[in-house]
């Protein structure tokens, strides 16, 4: 059944319904509607399916702050790099995506090449297993991600506690999505006609957590899954709202997302983390949008165990990540894009993670030597 959701024939038929609807919406708005996805995995799925090119002219899709790597503050990135550089006796555990993220002067990949120990883990559970198997090593796991990921990291702390490991700690840079969307939607310059909501974040938070998008800001929103059909359905449901002049927060992913979300995951998150004010790249300080470990787990809190001070450093000169993440410009409008900033030598963090707005754009939708004209063919 799930395979049916990625059936290209079904996709093409839906597309044939979607495009006329998008044209109708464009006619109503006097321009193509602009929808923003706020999940990096949506960004990837859109790019890999070629959906953006198929809708070109009738509907525009933009990437918001949905890639945790991209929204992580430069100072936070510098901190973990500084820790890796200063403490070759530590094992820095991380998801693969953080490896090449550029700090002000270096990256984890660079520091690994200089002797830092950096291990890539697929799951924080593996990092705990590693710590248990290497009692002479001290593992610091880099906790990056939204509500989807934070519970798994909380469980890793629980596992380390129950196994009485003294050599495992977490450096938590976790963030919460609804909080930053409030800031995003409050921006008077923002011109977004609908939000594609992150299906897996919503699996944890529940649909209701995003009701404010439509109730408070009067912006149509749809919780979306990640198959091509899911994404087209989300676009369809958003277009329907625009055409009918409604603004609701619709659950377009009911096979997984519930009204209240995953209560157990929410409880565990609450038990281990507390909301704190944190910096978001491009958004500045967003009150209560970060997740720090509760004080009673300070034994497992790398921020407490291995405090690092880094001098404040300006964001990379010329990087327009902030505007990209707010949907004000597309990546190719950034003056550095594809010139000084490429996936190989990223200037800004949006170019680093493959799901970063600029990296996905670079990888799938743009080419140095090619023209952009005829790629829909």
């Amino acid at each position, binding site marked *: 059944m799930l395979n049916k959701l990625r059936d290209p024939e079904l996709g093409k038929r839906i597309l044939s319904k979607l495009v006329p609807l998008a044209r109708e919406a464009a006619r109503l708005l006097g321009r193509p509607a602009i929808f923003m996805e706020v999940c990096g995995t949506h960004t990837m799925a859109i790019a890999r399916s070629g959906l953006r090119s198929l809708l070109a002219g009738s509907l525009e899709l933009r990437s918001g702050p949905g890639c945790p790597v991209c929204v992580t503050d430069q100072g936070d990135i510098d901190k973990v790099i500084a820790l890796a550089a200063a403490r070759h006796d530590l094992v820095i555990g991380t998801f693969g995506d953080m490896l090449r993220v550029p700090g002000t002067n270096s990256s984890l990949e660079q520091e690994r090449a200089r002797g830092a120990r950096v291990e890539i883990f697929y799951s924080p559970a593996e990092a705990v297993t590693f710590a248990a198997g290497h009692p002479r090593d001290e593992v610091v796991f880099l906790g990056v991600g939204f509500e*989807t990921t934070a519970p798994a990291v909380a469980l890793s702390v629980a596992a380390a506690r129950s196994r009485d490991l003294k050599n495992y700690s977490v450096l938590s840079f976790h963030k919460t999505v609804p909080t930053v969307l409030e800031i995003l939607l409050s921006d008077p310059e923002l011109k977004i006609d609908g939000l594609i909501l992150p299906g897996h974040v919503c699996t944890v938070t529940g649909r209701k957590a995003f009701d404010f998008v439509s109730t408070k800001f009067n912006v149509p929103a749809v919780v979306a899954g990640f198959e091509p059909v899911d994404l087209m359905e989300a676009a369809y449901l958003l277009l329907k709202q625009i055409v009918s002049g409604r603004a609701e927060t619709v659950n377009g992913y009911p096979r*997984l997302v519930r009204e209240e979300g995953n209560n157990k995951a929410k409880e565990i998150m609450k038990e281990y983390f507390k909301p704190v004010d944190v910096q978001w790249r491009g958004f500045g300080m967003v009150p209560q949008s970060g997740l720090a470990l509760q004080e009673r787990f300070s034994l497992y809190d790398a921020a407490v165990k291995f405090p690092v001070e880094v001098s404040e450093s300006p964001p990379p000169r010329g990087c327009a990540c902030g505007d990209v993440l707010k949907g004000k410009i597309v990546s190719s409008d950034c003056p550095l894009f594809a010139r000084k900033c490429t996936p190989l030598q990223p200037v800004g963090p949006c170019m680093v993670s493959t799901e970063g707005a600029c990296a996905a754009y670079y990888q799938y939708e743009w080419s140095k030597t090619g023209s952009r004209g005829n790629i829909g063919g």
Partner: protein
Amino acid sequence: MCLGIPGKVVEVNQAESWAVVESFGVRKKVGIALIDEDLVPGDYLMVHAGYAIGKIDMEDARVSLELWEEILHAQ
């Protein structure tokens, strides 16, 4: 940051809080500490970073697809 993989449960160990799921013909052991509901082989889970984050309602998926067929035939 939220790559989720759907998988069909083939084995459950509630006591040790894990299940073996099969996705695309591949089996993997995942943590199920975040799942409140009962699990039996044949259930579908959405897996992220080694943990199941939710149970997939296959009935909903079916309804969804039927709805599309209706819309597509409506024309």
